[in-house]
């Protein structure tokens, strides 16, 4: 197992290196440069040239790439133009917020999704199955930013039950209940689509397993039905559910971009959007590399988890 993990980690290196090249080239190619974005209406060629020089953007592309890569290996992600602070400080602050949101959302969608799938599968074509299928269909179909806005309108503006946006109250906040109040709406809005997807796949995975001979055998032996479902069937179904969870984890992480904007969650997705609009090249590059690294890492975790559950996958 140790060797397997090591192999996976080594294979991640070229992936990350490729990501640095791609994000660097994209940022170099998109029209508009940071100096123009900063100067706005006053972007005379003269002012732009001076500012680019001050920002160190007058060097050849290849030099800039290796300087950036070299600095990053020593832990120096550079300094953001638009926020005037070290890129890594900003990313770590923001990533923390994104992890809280995406993490809670991921737990919500996994638990609810699998539960709904199991219930659906065990009562195939029954009322519960139909109701769940119907709700899941709606969940998958409603865009989450729209759902988010509607939730704000109902729960925050009209009923005044929950805060509209942000992560903590400006005054007297900062504790766990405060965080929870701010999390309810964005985490739910973010979880809805993933819950639907997981529920559908869990249902079909369970249905397939429930048709297997050993389930019939277990039932024939008189094993308690709950144990049959949870112990025998779900455990076997998890092998095909876990990869879906991995994909949904990525989805929740990337889907948080627009949820973060709607709810003004101070996460990394909102940071990247702002940075792109402001042509804050160094922040975009650092942010993308960091998020991509996290994504690669989660994928490795999922693969390892899967190989633990299903020994056939190993090597």
């Amino acid at each position, binding site marked *: 197992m140790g060797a397997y993990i090591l192999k996976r980690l080594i294979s991640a290196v070229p992936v990350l290196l490729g990501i640095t090249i791609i994000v660097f080239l994209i940022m170099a190619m998109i029209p508009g440069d940071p100096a123009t974005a900063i100067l706005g209406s006053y972007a*005379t*060629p003269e002012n732009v040239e001076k500012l680019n020089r001050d920002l160190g953007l007058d060097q050849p592309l290849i030099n800039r790439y290796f300087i950036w890569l070299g600095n990053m290996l020593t832990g120096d992600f550079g300094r953001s133009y638009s926020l005037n602070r070290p890129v890594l400080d900003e990313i770590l602050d923001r990533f923390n917020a994104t992890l809280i949101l995406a993490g809670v959302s991921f737990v919500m969608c996994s638990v609810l999704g699998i539960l709904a799938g199991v219930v659906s599968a065990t009562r195939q074509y029954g009322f519960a199955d139909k109701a769940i299928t119907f709700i899941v269909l709606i969940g998958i179909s409603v865009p989450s930013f729209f759902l988010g806005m509607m939730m704000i309108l109902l729960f925050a503006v009209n009923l005044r039950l929950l805060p509209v946006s942000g992560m903590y109250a400006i005054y007297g906040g900062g504790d766990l209940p405060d965080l929870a109040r701010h999390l309810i709406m964005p985490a739910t809005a973010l979880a809805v689509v993933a819950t639907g997807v997981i529920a559908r796949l869990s249902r079909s995975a369970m249905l397939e397993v429930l048709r297997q001979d050993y389930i019939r055998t277990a039932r024939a032996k008189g094993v308690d039905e709950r144990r049959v479902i949870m112990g025998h069937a779900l455990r076997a179904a998890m092998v095909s559910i876990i990869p879906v969870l991995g994909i949904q984890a990525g989805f929740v992480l990337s889907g948080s971009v627009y949820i973060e904007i709607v709810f003004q969650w101070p996460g990394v997705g909102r940071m990247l959007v702002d940075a792109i609009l402001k042509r804050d090249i160094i922040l975009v590059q650092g942010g993308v590399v960091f998020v991509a690294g996290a994504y690669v890492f989660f994928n490795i975790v999922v693969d390892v988890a899967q190989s633990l559950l299903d020994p056939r996958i190993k090597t």
Partner: protein
Amino acid sequence: MKPFEWTRRSLFAAVAGVALAAGLGAPALAQTPPGVLVVGQIAEPKSLDPAAVTAVNDFRILVNLYEGLLRYQPGTLEVGPGLAESWDVSEDGTVYTFHLRDGVMFHDGTPFNAEAVKFNFDRMLNEDHPYHNTGPFPLAFYFSSIASTEVVDDLTVQITLNAPYAPFLSNLAYPTGLMVSPSAVMEHGADFGRNPAGTGPFKFAEWRSNEAVVIEKNPDYWGDPAGTDAVVFRPITDANTRVAEMLAGGIDLMVEVPPTALSEFQGESFSVVEQAGPHLWFLILNAKEGPFADKLVRQAANYAINKDAIVNDVLEGTAEVAAGPTPPAFTWAYDESLAPYPYDPDKARELIAEAGAEGAELTFYVTEGGSGMLDPIPMGTAIQADLNAVGFDVKIETYEWNTFLGEVNPGLEGKADMAEMAWMTNDPDTLPFLALRTAAWPDQGGFNSGYYSNPEVDALLEAAQTATDLDERAALYKEMQQIVHDDAPWVFVANWKQNAVTSDKVENLTLEPSFLLYLEDVVKN
């Protein structure tokens, strides 16, 4: 009976959900505390170092923390005393002597004096200055006319310009000229922008990244103390969310209310304030080639576009119809006799026929949004419809803001016949000087992207920039406006009125034509 059963069940679930949410939510929704004003901003500030920032959004915080030598007089764009109580200008208009206010302290406890003034300008302008590396200072060119800054005595400072430059005083009142504490810059270096110290009625308290910037009443302020104990600036980038926060009571004051949301705030519990500012939204017409090379066709475009409809229907009354190149907010320099081109499609058709430009195909650059651009896509399509109605064939090309600037600023030649543009300036000199002179064509580093050229206008603008007498300058600008109005190098569309909404707990908020948000007199109950 199944459906009925299901409805009841869902109703129960909904009630349970709401009850749960209520249990969690109820204690949190105390209103913002008295004495604390929470302001909904449009973005996180870049820095709180006035020399390093360019955005109005950041200026809104800065003008409450810092003061400049001069300051715009309330309700006008004319300069008056700030940290300088008085000033003298030499005969030839190149030497300015400022007499500083006595007994003013920076928030870090160091005194404000002539040395501090010299430090501020040298840091920005002198590349050899030990703290020049705390930049970059993108708007330093506002003061590029300064040749040297000399300390005469503790409270007298003399600034020498390399040539007479009339807008100098109004540039001093601009946020780029706000005075920072030299000792704080020395202490924090490049991090000064997150540890600011000025002389203003509020001092910096806390910056929680992406959540809030908090400033507190400065107990040692030399003038009248601020009306609130603290002001919290919250960055809320999404306009819909900002509106929702305002409606829900999470913020007390909201700036830049989207026109379509204004109707939400009609009730008793809110008040809307408006103020026209030095802003102009216009269309650059390519006067070098194509149909707009003919003055008649340019005038026809001005007649063909229904500016009232744009201002009232698209912008919901958040702007006024523009008459010429100078916004009326510059009261002293604005020519009152100028009337906007009336909406007259028949007259437009006549002029087009006279010029032989019927059915001309026009390429029109439109942006998705950008600083001061208001609602550029709906405005662009309304303009397209008006121009098509008088016989043009207008093709829109839409670009994201940075890309748009990259296309428009180098000039429209060979690419487009017209482009949207907007400017906000602090002096009537800036826009025409940078965008209407022959010497401001893009190949010479200016913003005259439509290649307008009129030697008379050039001469008037050169003369106005070196005249030190305000009346003389005003007369020159007025003459320039008449000529430019007639030559129609642009379609003059709108002057934006900035707006803000406050809750009924906020008193004494006034907006300034400078678009700066002074909060020292505001009271929050």
